[in-house]
């Protein structure tokens, strides 16, 4: 078992693909068909294209806040790929790759960042919770999903994400403790991208690794190279399988790096050196998987280019649709507070409707 071989307390980290795209651990290469590999790589490409375009739109004043996933694609796609359609996805707020893989339409992703609740009204069959803004508070929801699965005797697994910063929140610990105590089928993925806005990972905790936090809950923990899709997949797959077999939760720390700003309102040059960013660009998860796929002769520059062109068009068109979406109708801000509008809400809604329609405003 990987969680036994890669004990974070012994300073071990699971790596399979090096930054040049070479396999350094042949025996651990997960069983992924060429088609699957291409599918995952394409998801990463789409996520990246979306990030790049979103930042452009934002600079053009067409986009509100946006939190790019840039540089973290392998962590997100590699982990979600190890789950199945019937499994639950509980995001933090920066897992674009995972959401796209899970089947959230790009249009909704944009709608969310564009500022409407419709962006979290996912299609019926997408078992994903909405983005959770209060850091780490989503983890207990993930545990609850699993508690319900256990009670119902269903073998759905829940995969939940949190940032390195999120590990300092009290609720992180409460959730992991509940998960272990109730033996829930939960896989916790820490996207350790080295920063919580401006605060570096080293200021977040004195623990050498975040994976070792699992010890506090009597849960297995493992650290993986988060820019290595194969390593992330392998560790997550093992955790998902164990969870599905009823063997309980796992904590995975994926070590990656946020290449972009925290959000579009952030200026990372204030708090980090360009040289550090440059170094991590060299460890880009896309470049590395691309080289691997090219070496495997199942991908090439031509395919890459045409795929990117297709995605660029798709992203642009999707965003244009979103821009036409327009403002939220008055009724919508009242309608979903409760199943039925309370008399009080009806009164407020009617009065305001009358007021605005009366031409008084």
């Amino acid at each position, binding site marked *: 078992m990987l969680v036994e071989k890669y004990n974070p307390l012994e300073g071990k980290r699971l790596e399979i693909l090096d930054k040049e795209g070479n396999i350094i651990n042949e025996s651990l290469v997960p069983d992924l068909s060429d088609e699957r590999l291409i599918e995952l790589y394409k998801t990463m490409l789409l996520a990246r294209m979306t990030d790049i375009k979103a930042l452009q739109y934002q600079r053009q004043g067409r986009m509100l806040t946006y939190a790019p996933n840039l540089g973290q694609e392998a962590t997100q796609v590699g982990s979600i790929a190890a789950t199945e359609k019937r499994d*639950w996805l*509980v995001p933090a707020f920066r897992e674009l790759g995972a959401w796209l893989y899970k089947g959230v339409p790009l249009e909704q992703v944009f709608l969310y960042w564009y500022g409407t*609740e*419709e962006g*979290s*009204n*996912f299609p019926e069959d997408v078992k994903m*919770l*909405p983005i*959770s803004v*209060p850091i780490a*508070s989503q*983890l*207990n*929801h*993930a*545990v*609850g*999903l*699993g*508690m*319900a*699965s*256990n*009670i*119902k005797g269903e073998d759905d697994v*829940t995969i939940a994400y949190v940032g390195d910063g999120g590990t300092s929140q*009290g*609720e992180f610990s*409460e*959730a992991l*403790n*509940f998960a272990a*105590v109730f033996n829930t089928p939960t896989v916790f993925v820490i996207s350790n991208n080295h920063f919580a806005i401006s605060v570096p990972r080293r200021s977040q905790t004195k623990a050498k690794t975040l994976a070792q936090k699992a010890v506090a809950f009597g849960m297995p923990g493992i650290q993986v190279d988060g820019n290595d899709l194969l390593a992330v997949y392998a560790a997550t797959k093992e955790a998902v399988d164990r969870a599905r077999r009823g063997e309980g939760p796992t904590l995975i720390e994926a070590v990656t790096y946020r290449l972009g700003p925290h959000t579009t309102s952030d200026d990372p040059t204030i708090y980090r050196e360009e040289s550090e960013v440059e170094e991590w660009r060299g460890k880009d998860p896309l470049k590395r998987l691309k080289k691997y796929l090219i070496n495997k002769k199942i991908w090439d520059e031509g395919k890459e280019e045409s795929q990117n062109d297709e995605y660029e068009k798709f992203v642009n068109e999707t965003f244009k649709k979103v821009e036409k979406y327009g403002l939220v109708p008055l009724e*919508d801000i009242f309608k*979903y*507070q*409760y*199943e039925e509008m*309370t*008399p*009080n*809400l009806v009164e407020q809604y009617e009065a305001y409707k009358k007021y605005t329609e009366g031409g008084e405003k």
Partner: protein
Amino acid sequence: MPLLNNISAINQALDQEMERDQSVVVYGEDVGYEGGVFRATVGLQKKYGEKRCFDTPLAEAGIVGSAVGMAINGMKPVVEMQFSGFVLPALNQIIGHVARFRNRTRGKYHLPMVIRMPYGGGVRALEHHSESIEDIFAQTPGLKVVIPSTPYDSKGLLLAAIRDPDPVIFLEPKRIYRAFKQEVPEEDYIIPIGKAKIVKEGTDITVVTWGALVREAQKAAKVLEEKGVNIELIDLRTISPLDKGTIIDSVQKTGRFLVIHEAYKSFGPGAELISIVNEGAFLYLEAPPARLTGFDVTVPLPMGEHHFIITPEQIVDKVMEIVSY
């Protein structure tokens, strides 16, 4: 009909609903094996098993947060906060998530869940065991807030709360958990959320209160009757959403208004009631709408609590003051 006190009525409601609806699960600190520090959940684990009634680690955010996930994944969690003073660590979940899931997802997810907790003073308890914090929940859109005042209501309102498709904060006035008994039907019945109850019709003044103070107000009503003052007593039952209609109709009839609560005065729930009376019955008012409430001081420990507790005598005096305005 069997005579039950409030705590047994709550226990019966939980029991019957767990029997009726397999998706109801009940959990919290000491809730499972022991059956709760007030014995509200006694017998449930034995009857329905550890999967449906169980103890949790000591972490309120974990309890409420996991209930959110449970509710999304098909269960109807009824969780207990041991005392309302210990709901504070869960406010991030309650205000930040519980109240918001339906609106946040435009209806994709909604949370049929109940958060039960004993609240209020008068039991000579340690710090944090006597607060009345209905206002924090009442001011949060997306929550419903219910407070029973009798065993009959405890059962009927709790059943309504569990079946409500939206999250309900169910505050139990611990002072009257065992204070008196009442005939409570064995059958299933529901008291609708969002409706106040006119406990006693009257003509001279509208008095609104809830929870443990309903009884105190009833005692006062008797004394006042002897003094020739006939109060209309309304038990709010639901703090949010407020049953404005019943209150306003009553004040339009009586012309006078008093709200009584144990929560702190300033920025407390009484202020809202005074405001809606102003909004809906201003021209009928013959005296300033008034409130009789806790002081704006941290609830005192037992040796000072008598200063804080509202008595029937105070109610009588306050009503006399208003009717002779």
